[in-house]
Structure formats: C-alpha cells, structure tokens
C-alpha cells in the first residue's frame, strides 16, 4: 500500500488510493479477521499520518490491546496513542485493559501500558490508575520505573491534587544510579515542584545536597560509552538537573548558595567546541540567571553569553540573544556592553536571529542611548528585507514614541521612517504622529515643510502621503509663507500652486486608497480658503472626483464643491484649523482595549479607518464645537454632516432612505434650517416640494432650492457662521413676544405669522379620541400688491413632534388678499401634556420676479393655545 501511495504523483491519485485502502480495511474489520488486524492498523496509522480520517479503526485498537500476544498489544497501544486522544469517549473503554496490563508481570507489557497511559491519559484515568502507577515507581525493573515516573508527570498535570502522594517516591528516584530513571526522576521532581509548593520545600530541604553530588559525579565521571555524546556524559541528564536547580534555586538564597559551587564548576569546565557542551552551558547560564543573587556567577554567565554571541555558529548566537533578553532584566549594564554586537545581529541575513536581536535591542533602549540606536535602526531600514520592514518599523516607532526627548526629534524620526517604510506603518502610529504635531504649535511650520520635502522623494509611501496631506491642509499657509522658521532649517520656496500640485498628485495616484483620497479632498477644501489664488483650480480638482465610482468620494466632492462655490462667507470659518487634539485622552484610549480604541479614537482623531465619512464631519463638527451627539450619529452619511453641523437633528431612520440627490437637498435645506420633519424623511419633503414645484424631478427641486439658498445664506449669516448658529439655535428660550390671544375651550384661529407682505393664520382642531394630534389648517393671505408665484411653505418641528403636511391648495397667491392658499398640517406630540408644540417655518415665493424668503418661529402653542410669534427676519 505504501508503495502505491508513494507512486502517486498527484494529491487526487493519493486520495483515490487511500479511499480504496480504507474501504478494504473497513471490510476486514467487519469480517473480524484477527490475523490481519495488526497489519490493517499499521496501514491506518500511515493513512492517519497523511492526514486522513481514521476513526473507524479505533475499535480495532481496543481489540488488539485486549488480545494476549505481545506484538498485537504493541501495535494496539501504538494505534491507541496515535489514533486516539484524551477527548474521545472510546478512551473510557480502554481504562480497564490498561489496568490489567499494569498488573502483569511481564515488564514489557507493563511498560507499554505505562507508555500509553503517559501519552493519552485523561483526568478520570489519572484518578483511577494513580495507585497502580505509584506502586510501579518501585518496580524492580528500571525501564518500568522510568516510565512510571513520566506517567506520574502526566497524572499530576491532569490532577494536581495527587501530587503529594508522589513526593516521597519521586525523591527516592533521585538516588537511582540508572541514568534513564534518574533523568525521568529529575523531570518528575521538576514538575512536582511546579504544581506543589509543599514538594518544593521538601526537596529543597532533603535533596539538594544529594542532587549537587549527582551533578558533580556526572561532571567528573569517566567515560561512559552508554551515555556518551561527543565526549560529554549524558548531556540530557546534565540539562535536566540544571533545570531542576533552576526551579529549586529560584527565590531561595540557601539553596542557591549550595548549588553555586557546582554551577561555577560546570560553567568553567564544560567543553565548548561541541554542541552538547554548549547546550549544557546554555542551560547553566539560564540557571545562574534565575537563582538568587550571586554577583560573581552572574558576571561569569554574561561573559559566557558574550562568547556565544561572537560565535560563528548561528544556533549559538540565537540562544545567546534569547538568553540576553532574560539577563537584561537583571543586569542591563552588562548587556549594554554587547550592544554593538547585538546591533550587528539585527542586520543578520537569518530571520530568526534578526527577530530575536530586534527584540533585544528594543529592550536595550533607554533614555541615554535612544538617539544613536534609533539612528542605526533607521539607517538599516533603508536596506532591510521587505518582510522584515514591518517588524522593524513597528519597533522603531515604539522606541521613538517611548523615549523621544523632544518633539522635534520625534517628528524628524517619524518622517524618516514614513519616507523609508511608510507602507508598513500601522494606523495608530501615524495617528499618534498627527496628534503630536497638533500639540507642537511652534513646530507646525517646520513639520509641514519637512513633510513636503519628504513627499518629493518618497511619494509612494501611503502613510507619508496621508500625514503630509493632512498637514498641508491644516498648515498650508505656513508651508508657503515659510513662517515659524527654525534655525536648523533651510529656506524652501514653495508656491501655493506647488502645494496644490502635491495633493493633486496624491489624489490621482492609482495606488492611493480611499482614505488617502478622502483626506486629500478635505485638505483641498481647507486649502481653498488658505490659498485664495488657487480656489478655482482646487474646485476643478474636486469636481473631477464628482465622477468617482466611490459614493463617498463622489458625494463629498459635490458637497465641497458647493461649499466652495456658493458659501463663500462661511467657508473660512468652516475650514478653520483643527483644535489641538488631546494627547492624554488619545493615549489613554489607545492603551485601552482595541475595539474601544477604534471606536473612540474617531472622536480624538477623526481620520480613522472606515471613517472616511468621519473626517470631514467630525472635523467640521469639532470645528464648530457642537454638542457631542452630533458625531455620534451612527454611520453619518455625507448629507447629514452639515445638518449635524448646524445642530439640526434628523432621526437616523430618515438618513438611510435618502438618496444622494436628496441628501444634497437636505444639506442645503438644513443649511437654511428647514430640516425635514424627522420621521417622514424624504417623502414628506418631496411632498412639500412637489406641492410648490408641480412635480419636478428631485434634481430640479435641488436646483431650484439651491438658487434661493445662496442669497439667503448670505442674507441670514452676514459673515460668520456664528450668527448663523444663533439663527438656527433650535427651539430654545429664544426671546419671544407672547401674543396672548384668547383663552378658552374652543380652538380659536390665530395669526401665526404676519409681516408686511404676508399673513398666516392657523386654525386648530383635534381629532376625536386622539388628543395627541392637532390638525392645523394654515391659511396664507397676500397683503402686498404683487402676485406671489412658486409659493412654498415649509415647516420644521423638534424630534418629539411628528409633522405631516398635506399638499397645499395651490402655489400662486393672488395679490391684495384676493385669495388664499390653504394647507393642512397634522402634528402629533409624543410628549403630549409635557411639552408644548413648537414650530419653525419658512416661506418662499417669487414676487415681481424676485425671490423672497420669510422665516418665523412659533413657540408655546398648546394647552392655553397661546401663540407666540417669535422674532423673525
């Protein structure tokens, strides 16, 4: 069979052969043919090794174990160990067979059973069979004793409670002469000490002198052919003994004292030109480092490591580096001496050694040597293998972060790393860098120029591009103006066009990912106000992204475009510099759990994965210092970021349903504080739009709305957005002029709004049985002499209200009160009796071919039906 499998050229052929074999083995099993059983099982083992399922053979193992012949038993146990494991139920069935075999007189059978038990024993089996094993520790044959010892290791690992029963027999094993037994006995003691402190104490008191003698005899023993390995007697026993010393000496000064002589002897006398000798030395050093303080020995140990380190054998260097990592905790001075050699190892061609050395260097760094070490590492970064760069950059970044003596150095190093290996830098790292940059106001100019320079040479490094783009966006004017010059800097001349060029290249680069492009867009928006001369060009670049296939970019491009074109006045306020990001909260969050860091860092630093939408919205929100709930809106879609900005809450439900164009409309609407009533979202908005626009398409509506919006924005916000904010400042306690009309049980009609040109009357009624809902009939009367066309009435209510508007009776309002438009509004108050109705409205129409816009606010309506006519323009 094996030949057949070997002959197979492809995996498919091999599978076919295995399937056939499995079928025939199954058939043999069902025929229950005892002669071929063990051969079948051997085949099964092979099949299992190749990684095919063999569970059907498990019962066969049990049968073989139960059979009397030794060869059958032998193979049965082997099968048991290979094919089964402790988690399978079948194992319970085997306990009895093992028990019987443990009680046999034939040492080989007992050995087999012990061996199987040692390899697969489960906790239940451990409890059941522990007494047998304990008895076998005193069996006359050494081969059985050694196996029993290892079996005990398994048992006490599975059931630590049983350890105390084994302390005395284990200690007895240490007096053995037979190497195998001694070896296993020592291992057993080591394990017992790990699970039981009682045993540890006992062994420290009773056995340590004996053990030292054993080791001494071993070291000085004459040639023993049985156990000799390249001139050294049984290095394995040496190592195990040293390991036991390691455990015994750790944290116990007396024990450490007792063993220090022999350790010194081992450390000095062992041959070092053979691997076996080095293995012993290595273990000896490990033991010396872990036992209680002994200055002389430690120096000896570190010296040995130094010798290892300069060895030409890679294996030895590897273990030396490994051990130095432990030594550094105890005696960093001694390790520092080998710094140069270790740095060489970082540049080794062997990946394992490099990795170790890098970790060691990382531990070696302290305040004093951070600068030279970082320099070495950064220099090496340039020539290192691509697959090693990831690790290396991570370590450099963390060294730089931890030990940077001053911010300028930190920024310098990071810029270097980013330009060498920007593609390997993790997100947290450049986020942290940006935070540091914002926190160093005197370095803004320097940083942005340094980044600009770096970008010229290393434009392909994604993270470098991101950081640079961000900084240029934020501090663009410093780049051009050469402001905040430091002494060490050279002057560079960058024109506004150059800076825009850089960003344009970045946004056009094919390899730029979504995040980078989105950051470029934001930067461009910011530059549009920083560089007045380039506004036109920036707008063009942004417009190109209108055609982007990525919805996010497309939408953002459209929005930014409209900000640049139509909202000249508020733009500069919108794109002000980011406030200084809080270092402490950010690092605190980073230290927290990872998912938390991801979610919270969106607030701390609004340029985070998946948050392509976030940067702009959160940035702008921060900018205007709005309440925090604005940026908690889940999955804030592009449209509502301006809504958030202006503090108009739309319920999330409505956001999802909006389509892009409508969202665009929302933005403008909301900019002008005509937020769509929350629950009805776009449909109601369209209702009211269509009433005015005679069912024009949504885009048409948008255009139509957009055109009056621009002047109005200007009109309503002369200069700064702050006044706009006031204007839109919700339904709070705005100074209102109470117009007490009538009190009484009837629902009188009231004048909700009156201006020189327009009068709006509300008539109230209630739906029977539904006190929450008020039906308002609005009647508009034209007081001027011009006919109003395109008359649109829009209203907004806070969240706890629901507003439904029926279509208006018409969109033309005849002059001089010769007619009226009526429109029905239905308002449901979810907090009826607790809160009053409030409403804001906006009326737009065309009079004399001029667009007119009127706005007003109605407060305090219900209960007493007092109507308040708020201030308006």
């Amino acid at each position, binding site marked *: 069979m*094996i030949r057949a499998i*070997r002959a197979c050229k492809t995996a498919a052929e091999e599978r076919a052969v295995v399937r056939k074999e499995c079928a025939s083995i199954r058939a043999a099993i069902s025929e229950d043919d005892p002669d071929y059983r063990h051969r079948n099982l*051997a085949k099964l*083992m*092979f099949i299992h*090794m*190749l*990684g095919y399922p063999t569970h059907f053979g498990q019962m066969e193992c049990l049968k073989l174990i139960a059979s009397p012949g*030794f*060869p059958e038993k*032998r193979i049965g146990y*082997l099968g048991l*160990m*290979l094919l089964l*494991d*402790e*988690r399978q139920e079948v194992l319970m069935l085997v306990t009895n067979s093992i028990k019987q075999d443990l009680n046999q007189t034939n040492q*080989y059978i007992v*050995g087999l059973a012990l*061996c199987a038990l*040692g*390899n697969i024993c489960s906790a239940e089996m451990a409890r059941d069979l522990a007494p047998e094993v304990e008895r076998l520790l005193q069996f006359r044959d050494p*081969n059985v004793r*050694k196996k029993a010892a*290892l*079996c005990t*290791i*398994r048992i006490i*690992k599975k059931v630590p409670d049983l350890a105390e029963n084994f302390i005395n027999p284990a200690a007895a094993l240490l007096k053995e002469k037979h*190497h*195998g037994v001694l*070896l*296993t006995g020592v*291992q057993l003691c080591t394990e017992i000490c790990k699970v039981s402190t009682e045993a540890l104490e006992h062994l420290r008191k009773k056995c340590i002198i004996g053990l030292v003698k054993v080791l001494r005899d071993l070291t000085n023993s004459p040639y023993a052919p*049985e*156990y000799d*390995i390249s001139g050294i007697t*049984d*290095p*394995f026993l040496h*190592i195990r003994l040293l*390991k036991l010393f390691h455990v015994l000496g750790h944290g116990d000064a007396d024990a450490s004292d007792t063993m220090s002589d022999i350790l010194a002897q081992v450390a000095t006398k062992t041959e070092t030109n053979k*691997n076996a000798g*080095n*293995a012993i030395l*290595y273990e000896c050093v*490990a033991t010396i480092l872990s036992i209680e303080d002994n200055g002389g020995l430690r120096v000896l140990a570190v010296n040995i490591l130094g010798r290892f380190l300069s060895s030409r*054998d*890679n*294996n*030895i260097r*590897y*273990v030396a580096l*490994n051990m130095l990592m432990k030594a550094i905790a105890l005696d960093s001075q001694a390790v520092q001496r080998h710094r140069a050699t270790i740095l060489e190892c970082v540049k080794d*061609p*062997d*990946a*394992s*050694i490099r*990795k170790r050395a890098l970790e060691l260097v990382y531990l070696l760094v302290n305040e004093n040597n951070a600068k030279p070490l970082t320099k070495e590492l950064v220099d090496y970064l340039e020539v290192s293998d691509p697959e090693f760069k990831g690790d290396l950059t991570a370590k450099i970044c963390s060294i730089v972060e931890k030990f940077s003596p001053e911010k300028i150095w930190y920024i310098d190093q990071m810029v270097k790393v980013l330009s060498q290996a920007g593609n390997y830098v993790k997100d947290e790292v450049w986020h942290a860098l940006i935070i540091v940059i914002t926190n160093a106001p005197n370095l803004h100019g320097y940083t942005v120029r340094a980044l600009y320079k770096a970008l010229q040479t290393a434009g392909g490094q994604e993270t470098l591009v991101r950081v640079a783009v961000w900084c240029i966006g934020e501090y663009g004017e410093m780049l051009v103006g050469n402001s905040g010059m430091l002494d060490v800097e050279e002057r560079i001349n960058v024109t506004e066009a150059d800076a825009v060029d850089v960003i344009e290249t970045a946004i056009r680069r094919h390899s730029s990912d979504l995040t980078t492009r989105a950051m470029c867009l934001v930067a461009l928006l910011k530059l549009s106000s920083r560089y007045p001369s380039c506004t036109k060009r920036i707008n063009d670049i942004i417009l190109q992204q209108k055609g982007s296939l990525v919805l996010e970019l497309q939408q953002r491009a459209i929005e930014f475009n409209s900000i640049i074109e139509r909202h000249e006045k508020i733009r500069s306020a919108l794109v002000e510099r980011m406030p200084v990001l809080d270092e402490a909260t950010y690092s605190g969050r980073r230290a927290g759990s990872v998912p938390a860091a991801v979610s919270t860092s969106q607030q701390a630093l609004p340029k985070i994965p998946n948050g392509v939408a976030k940067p702009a919205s959160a940035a702008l929100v921060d900018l205007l210092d709005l309440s925090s709930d604005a940026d908690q809106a889940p999955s804030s879609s592009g449209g509502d970021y301006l809504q958030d900005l202006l503090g108009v809450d739309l319920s999330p439900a409505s956001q999802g349903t909006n389509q892009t164009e409508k969202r665009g409309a929302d933005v403008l609407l909301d900019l002008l504080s005509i937020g769509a009533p929350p629950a009805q979202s776009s449909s109601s908005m369209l209702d009211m739009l269509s009433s005015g626009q005679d069912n024009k398409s949504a885009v048409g509506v948008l255009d139509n709305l957009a055109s009056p919006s621009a002047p109005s924005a200007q009109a309503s916000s002369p200069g700064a957005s702050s006044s706009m904010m006031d204007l839109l400042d919700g339904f709070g306690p705005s100074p209102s002029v109470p117009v007490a009309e009538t009190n009484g049980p009837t629902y009188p009609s009231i004048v909700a709004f009156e201006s020189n040109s327009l009068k709006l009357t509300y008539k109230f009624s209630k739906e029977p049985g539904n006190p929450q809902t008020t039906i308002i009939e609005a009647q508009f009367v034209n007081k001027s002499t011009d006919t109003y066309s395109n008359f649109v009435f829009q209203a907004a209510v806070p969240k706890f209200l629901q507003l439904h508007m029926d279509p208006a009776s018409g969109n033309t309002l005849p002059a001089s009160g010769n007619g009226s438009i009526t429109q029905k509004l239905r308002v449901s108050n979810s907090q009826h009796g607790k809160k009053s109705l409030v409403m804001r409205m906006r009326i737009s129409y065309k009079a004399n071919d001029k667009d007119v816009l009127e706005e007003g606010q109605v407060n305090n309506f219900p209960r007493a039906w007092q109507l308040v006519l708020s201030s308006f323009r």
Partner: protein
Amino acid sequence: MGIRFVLMVNKQGQTRLAQYYEYLNLEERRTLEGEIVRKCLARTEQQCSFVEHRNYKVVYRRYASLFFLVGVDNEENELAILEFIHLLVETMDRHFGNVCELDIMFHLEKAHFMLEEMVMNGCIVETSKSNILSPIQLMDKAS
C-alpha cells in the same frame, strides 16, 4: 513538558512520521504541518536551526533528504533538542543500518516504537541507544 511534536518530513514536504504530545485535531495538524514545513524548507544551510512559529519554537535538522522537526515550548533548551534529534537519528541508524527515508516509511511502526522509548508525554525518557533498542530487538526475535 518540553516537546510538543516530532515530525519527519522529506524534501518534498511529505510527512513521513508524526507524533504529537498534545491534542490537535486532524485539520489543525495538517495546517500546522503545512505552515511549519513551508517555513523550514525555505531556509538555507547557513541559517540557524530554530524557527519561531505561533507559540512554538521549531528546532529542525536536515539529514540527506529528510527533515527532522521538533516543536518545543519556549522554555526548552534548543541546543539540547538539536542533540536529541541527532541521538534519534543515530539510534535509527543503529537499528536499520544506514537509515533512509524508505526505512522509516516501510517500518513506520518500528520508528514509532523507538520514538516511544525515547520520548514520552513530551519528556525524554531514555538516552542510551542500547536501552532504547533492546525491546525492539526482542520483539523482532519473537516474531
């Protein structure tokens, strides 16, 4: 418990012997073997014999076309394991007489018996070649 698994793999990456001392299901074993073998086989003679993989350290040594891979935990003495591999090979050599891949394939159970005599539950039991081989020779005589 030092040794987690012992693997013998030929140059083509086919497993020739596998013994695990901790529980892994078949699927995990196959992926682990695949990953480790790919890692080790890619290394050159000059590089050191230790590879870190997941939470294991793999100590490996190459004899002609056969790789011996031993997975150990982090506390283990790597140099000693290297020595152990050599001992294992010497033992097999003494039994089969100039051991080769085919010997191990066709006498898989014997190879396992030897390993079983040397390692139990991840600990080294016996390091004397004659002690290891005596039960196996006894069995050969009997059959």
